């Protein structure tokens, strides 16, 4: 396969092969993407931190290793963007918050170490809703990111920066994190692919915690195979993360190659359709179901009755755990300190620092979480939410007893306009209605693009949900569906995005 002259329009797999064959160097590929970032990011604002020299220097190191014949990985030399929630040693990590302005972690997240060992080159840190709290990246302390499909629209959140970087060809790969849909929903509204791995499948060491029992880091790319390749690099047991799964990493790439859904039973979740879902979204969703049927799968309707309560449970569990996880940001050991020097006490300085450093959404959730954990309320709120979680687990278990995977639209709507939902936190929370149950249960899910909504021409995503530890099923089904769609479109959906 010969290389197109525009390196930024290539898939990661194509780039990796070309680099391995010495048809092109990692330095050239990296430079091409840095140029692209310089060209378009002032309009997209996907990146918070880019250090061109550092990236090129990494790339040169990889080239040197490859020249020596050192086998790094199937993605060696390919560049990647990292959500700013990931600790990168010596490189600013803000989590989209002013409270960490200027902070350079003294250590790398485990997944960063894995990426470095695999010869993947970091392009920089991407924008996000502050501390991953949001569905639009509008809650970033550093300004919003713009959707490459329509710059007046949100790219999704909390990982809008990573998704936008991929969708605008600034990077072929990105790392996101997903607590309630923060990888999947941005993927859906930007026409890209994103996967939330099974809880524990990817190490959380070095991923700044939002809700510890829900968070997972995951791969983002423009197609299913690239996503599988990236997932393979970052997955695996980590002794530094007590909740990481201690089992061999399944072969996601093989699963993506085995794009065969014949004989599979695919369940449609009754509770994740209908009211609240945009008509164009449902239209494309149903068309995809037809395609899956054509491909040989059997579509079955299943009911997960407790999914109605998932949003409520989630918006209790997340703020509760987050209120505790964010307590360490107090201006004492790292980050900013707000002290007017007028002999204020430590209690006052902590309070002033957090007041100034945190944005409104973060403060809102901290208070909600503090409230839900308070004595007298614990049982009715946090306690009850954890019990509903058990019921949601049971719903999934019952469903998976009859089907192999489940599907739903990823997001109820396409990308909305920047500013449209900012004043109404509740309406913002509804964006996650389809993605949240998966985080509560801890199993895995993928979002892939299935078309543009007729009414607004914006991307629609379909979510595939598989049982815990069965991430390979996501790649198998996703690959099959993508193949069929790409055939119809004559290329990836993303190639229809407006040029920037």
């Amino acid at each position, binding site marked *: 396969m010969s290389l197109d002259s525009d390196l930024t329009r290539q898939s990661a797999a194509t780039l990796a092969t070309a680099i391995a064959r010495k048809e092109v160097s990692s330095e050239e590929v990296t430079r091409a993407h840095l140029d692209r970032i310089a060209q378009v990011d002032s309009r997209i604002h996907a990146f918070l931190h880019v250090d061109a020299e550092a990236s090129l220097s990494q790339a040169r190191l990889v080239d040197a290793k490859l020249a020596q014949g050192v086998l790094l990985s199937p993605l060696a030399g390919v560049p990647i963007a990292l959500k700013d929630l*990931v*600790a990168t040693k010596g490189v600013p*990590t803000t*989590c989209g918050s002013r409270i*960490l302005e200027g902070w350079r*972690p*003294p*250590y790398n*997240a485990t997944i960063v170490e894995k990426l470095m060992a695999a010869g993947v080159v970091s392009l920089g840190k991407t924008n996000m809703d502050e501390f991953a709290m949001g569905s639009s990246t509008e809650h970033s302390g550093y300004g919003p990111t713009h959707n490459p499909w329509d710059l007046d629209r949100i790219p999704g959140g909390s990982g809008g920066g990573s998704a936008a970087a991929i969708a605008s060809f600034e990077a072929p790969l990105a790392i996101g994190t997903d607590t309630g849909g923060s990888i999947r929903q941005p993927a859906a509204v930007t026409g890209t692919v994103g996967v939330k791995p099974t809880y524990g499948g990817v190490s*959380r*060491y*070095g*991923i*700044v*915690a939002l*809700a*510890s*029992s829900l968070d997972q880091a995951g791969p983002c790319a423009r197609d299913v195979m690239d996503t599988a390749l990236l997932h393979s690099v970052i997955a695996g047991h980590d*002794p*530094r*993360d*007590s*909740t990481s799964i201690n089992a061999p990493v399944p072969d996601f790439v093989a699963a993506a190659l085995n794009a065969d859904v014949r004989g599979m039973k695919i369940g449609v979740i009754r509770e994740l359709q209908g009211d609240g879902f945009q008509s164009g979204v449902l239209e494309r969703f149903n068309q995809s179901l037809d395609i899956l049927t054509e491909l040989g799968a059997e579509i079955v309707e299943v009911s997960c009755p407790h999914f109605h309560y998932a949003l409520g449970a989630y918006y209790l569990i997340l703020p*509760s*755990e987050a*209120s*505790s996880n964010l*307590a*360490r*940001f*107090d201006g*004492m*050991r*790292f980050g900013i300190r707000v002290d007017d020097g007028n*002999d204020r006490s*430590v*209690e006052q300085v*902590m309070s002033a620092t957090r007041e100034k450093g945190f944005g409104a959404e973060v403060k809102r959730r901290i208070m909600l979480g*503090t409230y839900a*954990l*308070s*004595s007298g309320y*614990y049982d009715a709120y*946090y306690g009850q939410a954890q019990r509903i979680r058990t019921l949601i687990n049971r719903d999934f278990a019952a469903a998976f007893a009859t089907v192999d995977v489940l599907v739903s639209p990823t997001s109820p709507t396409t990308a909305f306009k920047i500013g449209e939902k900012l004043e109404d936190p509740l309406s913002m929370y509804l964006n996650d209605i389809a993605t949240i149950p998966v985080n509560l249960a801890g199993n895995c899910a993928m979002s892939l693009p299935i078309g543009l909504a007729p009414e607004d021409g914006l991307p629609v995503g379909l979510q595939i949900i598989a049982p815990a530890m069965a991430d390979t099923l996501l790649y198998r089904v996703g690959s099959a569906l993508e193949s069929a769609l790409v055939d119809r479109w004559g290329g990836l959906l993303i190639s229809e995005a407006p040029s920037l």
Partner: protein
Amino acid sequence: MTTQYESVIAEFDPIIGIETHIELGTNSKMFCSCSAQFGGDPNTHVCPVCLGMPGSMPVVNRAAVESTIRMGLALNCSIVPWCRFARKNYFYPDMPKNYQISQYDEPLCINGYLDVTVATANGPQVFRVDIERVHMEEDTGKLLHAGGAGRIHGATHSLVDYNRAGIPLIEVVTKPILGTGDLAPDVAKAYVAQLRDLMRALGVSDVRMEEGSLRCDVNVSLSRPGEEWGTRTETKNVNSLRSVERAVRTEMLRQADRLRAGDRITQETRHFNEGTGDTTSGRSKEGAEDYRYFPEPDLVPIAPSKEWIEELRATLPEIPSVRRARLQRDWGVSEFDMQSLVNAGALELIVASIDAGVQPAAARKWWTGELTRVANERSCELEELTVTPNDIVQIENLIAAGELTDKMARSVFEGLLQGEGTVADIVHQRGLIVVNDDASLIAAITAALADSPDVAEKIHSGKIAAAGAIVGAVMKATHGQADAARVRTLLLEHLGIKE
């Protein structure tokens, strides 16, 4: 005439409770691999985990769990089949995460007991102290308050060293201890002493109160017989065995005063003052702090298997009470004496001295005699004295060789306590040489006799006892470095007197 204390006992029943925190002597911290060694330059035993840096995650130290299970077994607890860690949320600068990983409603060990023996005038009495729970948590950093007098009050700022943050801390909580009556302070002290000995025997901790590896809070309440239990107070900063006893006693007296005056007892945390022996009001516990406990999501449950528990049970050492009984028999001492030396904190020091080569009687003599006297004088623990079992070995060797008398030995101890050097250094510097060559002694005797001619006459006339005056004079002349018994023998020989 009854003392104030006796009158309080006559009117009230004390109920006490003791919470101890024990720092484990593991190599690494509870949730990270940083060194758990005591000391070290500030902030040099730290990492992203114990500094609470964003993205860091805890991983449980297996040895800490094993130690906790062994402690629970030694305290006759049940080891639960399943439990979790929980977060205790509150803001304080010595806590890097502003929450402490602890155990809340699911402690690892529950429902145990320790039989505590107290020496009383009527002989030893055994009290069964029920143990509510033994659980794991992590220690906090150390604060230095600057700009004031070193106390938090009046400080302009504080300096934090996180070396200690994350060191495994095991909390042992008793159930309310009833029926101790006038022995409440003694039971409290004996419990802590015997708990400490148990921890040492298990090898899980240094348990040095002065170093903070054993910390105590004592809870005290009073009630009139037949009435409901009174409000309890918690007293902190109880840093020695002596303080445990004093704190309980003082608090009983204070509460009685208030109750008799018709005032109520405020449920609060009080601070024990070493200097005055009284307790002062600290923070009010009324409307208890809301710690918003919830299960720690970054850690998975602890589910010790029966096999593991039995493996650990097999590693338990001889039960201290059994060992004490054996030593008592070996040494031929009374129960009262045995309990006294245990509760004075002398047992392990005596055993260590014997292990180092000192005769049992000599070891007991020095530790319960001279050294306890000094410890009392200084209001400190025996083990804080700068005298080691090896020092005693050397001193005893010199005495056995006739090169040191008992009296001179006291001078050596004085030198050791003042940090003047080794036993050999001190003997040399202080010129502690036994004058034992007969020629010098006879010369001194002769001189003394010359000074008191009438004494020689008295002795000759049968008053042998008068020899004591000459012996005394010779001792004085030789700065106590003569062997008094030898002087007496030589004196009588010199006078030609046979006894």
